[in-house]
């Protein structure tokens, strides 16, 4: 039964793609920091609770000391969390600013992302082409060049969607009537991430199936791919 219909239950390949943007590297760094501090706090509290319930379990009917207050202790356990939290906020503050306002704002490529119930289209306005379907026709594919700065201009045609690329460790809501954009710096690694694109904001009936694939190509391969798309679009136009 555990084997199920898929024939395997423990995956060889993790579902989460490696970070492909400089910003994703930053965010994974913050994630790791928070995770380890969080686990340390969790372990500390759990050990404290275990210690207390073992050490101070009832052994007799004598009334224990009735201690109401210990002001220095109370100040300590208010101040230490405050310092930890402010330190974590400082880390967040620096990273958020780096992610939301990257230093290099001139994009090498602009990508028009259009979300609609329940599909995506990716336009390359400089080349004048729009890609709706991908290789498998039902899952659109977002193709990006490595080592480049890409600006995504997003719009929704109907309801609120959210453009989530797990390999970017980033998502951005797409609110109808409010065009928005963000910029990322794609890293060095080319790669194929068929499960990296997700609509994260619930958007109605087929929300669960509103996914897209992400492929990062070497810059020269990308130019060839884009030229091919332009040629295909022109031939389709000529046919009709």
């Amino acid at each position, binding site marked *: 039964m555990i084997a199920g219909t898929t024939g395997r239950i423990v995956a060889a390949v993790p579902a989460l793609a490696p970070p492909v943007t400089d910003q994703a590297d930053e965010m994974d760094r913050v994630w790791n920091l928070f995770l380890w501090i969080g686990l340390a706090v*969790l372990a500390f509290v759990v050990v404290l609770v275990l210690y207390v319930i073992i050490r101070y379990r009832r052994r007799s009917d004598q009334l224990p000391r009735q201690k109401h207050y210990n002001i220095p202790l109370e100040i300590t356990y208010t101040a230490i969390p405050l310092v930890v939290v402010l330190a974590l906020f400082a880390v967040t503050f620096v990273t958020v600013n780096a992610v939301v306002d990257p230093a290099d704002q001139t994009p090498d490529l602009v990508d028009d992302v259009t979300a609609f119930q329940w599909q995506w289209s990716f336009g390359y306005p400089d080349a004048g082409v729009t890609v709706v379907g991908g290789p498998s026709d039902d899952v659109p594919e977002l193709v990006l060049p490595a080592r480049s700065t890409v600006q995504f201009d997003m719009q929704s045609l109907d309801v609120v969607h959210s453009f989530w690329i797990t390999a970017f460790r980033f998502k951005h809501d797409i609110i109808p009537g409010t065009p928005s954009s963000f910029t990322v710096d794609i890293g060095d690694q080319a790669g194929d991430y068929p499960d990296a694109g997700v609509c994260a904001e619930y958007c109605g009936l087929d929300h669960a199936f509103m996914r897209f694939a992400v492929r990062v190509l070497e810059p020269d391969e990308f130019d060839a791919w884009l030229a091919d798309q332009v040629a295909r679009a022109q031939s389709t136009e000529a046919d009709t």
Partner: protein
Amino acid sequence: MTTTERRPAPGDDHEYGLLDIDDFVQGDGSAGHAGLPRTIIGWLSTTDHKALGIAYIIASMTFLLIGGALAGIMRAELAEPGLQVVSAETYNSIFTIHGSLMVYLFAVPFGFGLANYLMPLQIGAPDLAFPRLNAFSYWLYVIGGTIMLLGFLADGGPADFGWFAYPPLSGAAGSPGLGADLWIVAILLTGTSGTLTAVNVIATVTMMRTPGMTLFRMPILTWNLLVTAFMVLLAFPVLSGALLMLLADRQFGTHFFDPVNGGSPILFQHLFWFFGHPEVYIVALPFFGVVTEVFSVFSRRPTFGYKGLVLATLTIGALSTSVWAHHMFVTGEVVLPFFALTSALIAVPTGVKIFNWIGTMWGGSISFEAPMKFAIGFLVTFVGGGITGIMLASPTIDFHLSDSYFVVAHFHYVMGGTVVFAMFAAIYFWWPKVTGRFLSERLATIHFWLLMVGFNMTFFFMHFLGRDGMARRTADYPDIGDFHLWNLIASLGYVVLVLSFIPFGISVVQSFRRPMTAGADPWHANTLEWATTSPPAEHNFSWLPPIRSERPVFDFRWLNYEDVGTAGYSDAWLARQDHDGQWFPLHQWSRHPDEEPTAASGPQEQPGPGQRPRDETPEQSP
């Protein structure tokens, strides 16, 4: 351990010189069902706070069971990739109604049930300030909940836009069905009900406390209910306003949230979360109060840092109104650092609470009856959810995790697990008070461990799913990575969760076949609800102990403890006197070696109104 073994025999108490509260309340400590209606018409028309409190709790737990059953359909669907059990359309309705039931119709009204039943008892009042308004808000709530469920009969099914109903999806074009309108009306009615209850709670706590019950002698549960009521007053009308605008958009052709005609979908999100985040604490604070009482009673210690704890509660209440936009980090429409800072800061008073609870147990004499087990379960679960909360408060991390299963795991830890653990702590703790009977300790232990295992199995692995890229609110998922494994574990965990309710159900049925032996104060507790019969008679009290601290029943019971006042065991006595200038021992023959209290050395106790001393008390006939 059976219930009869657990309960200290009255004879033992007297050997220790303890006062038995049963000797002071009228009758034998068991008043039968005095005070509760006996007929159906009686229940339908009652304005009694105890009857309505029980009715709130029964109604909210009914909605919990319905919501839990809907979750079962969701877990069955998600056990394997692909659509097997229900269509995507049905799944979307089910998760919407599941979330709505749990948030609007279970978690908050259960807290109102506690406020109804316990708060007047804890402050020595005979009822809430406005009993008929109280009955009115109860019936608004039940009617609202029924209207939401009627959506299942509507053409096109119930609402299917998620429990936060973002427009334009929830607008006339996005969700044309009648179920959506029923949902909006249902939330408007329950929201109004909550607002009225909040008014009632505030009026009662401010005006009807018994003489001697100063603000800083109120039990922490009452404090938390008071702060909750203020937050309800602040938050619920905003939700009602937003939903009225949404209803007008749908029905009357207005364009508040319609982007095509210049409306603003983001405005709804702001209004919703201005309600939605205080809502989280509206749900949680009453349960924080519950476990505070439980930790103190079963550790035989006062609540450590009582005033700090109250301050932390007030701080949470204040901060919770300025954190709402952390639900909207990924919209790109909010000031990230401000809301990141306020959201992170709220961890500090919450951490203070956790340390106060541990401090209460520290140095105590802890016994592990069922309420204490569940309270400790609450504590561990809550810390787990709090950690992920701090992570999500950082926009850097939230960019990836927002609207993923990580968030599902997070809020099921903070709003699901903690609420359910604390709810059962409350039920096991006050069951003897409400019914006069005990629940089985043996079954409670099975219940606790099944709940612990089932809950963590169901929700822990959702953290991994979210981190690896599974979006919430999806009827299906691609068969990638370990998605199938983790979903399967979660679905099996749900089965264990369901099993955990069976010993509880058996225990309840068994309990009603037992005699009413609980007496007034079976746990040797602290607060005034234990200074009356179990169940309490109509108008609650025939007698009240003097109130000199936040633990009047404790003070009263331990007063004649033969060792209180002798070297080595004087701390209780001294601690009370140190922190309460008005505290003075009732009995005149205290044997404290250093300080022999006499009538001249302190204010003489005068019996106040409501503190009718009995003609013959054990003090005078030891």
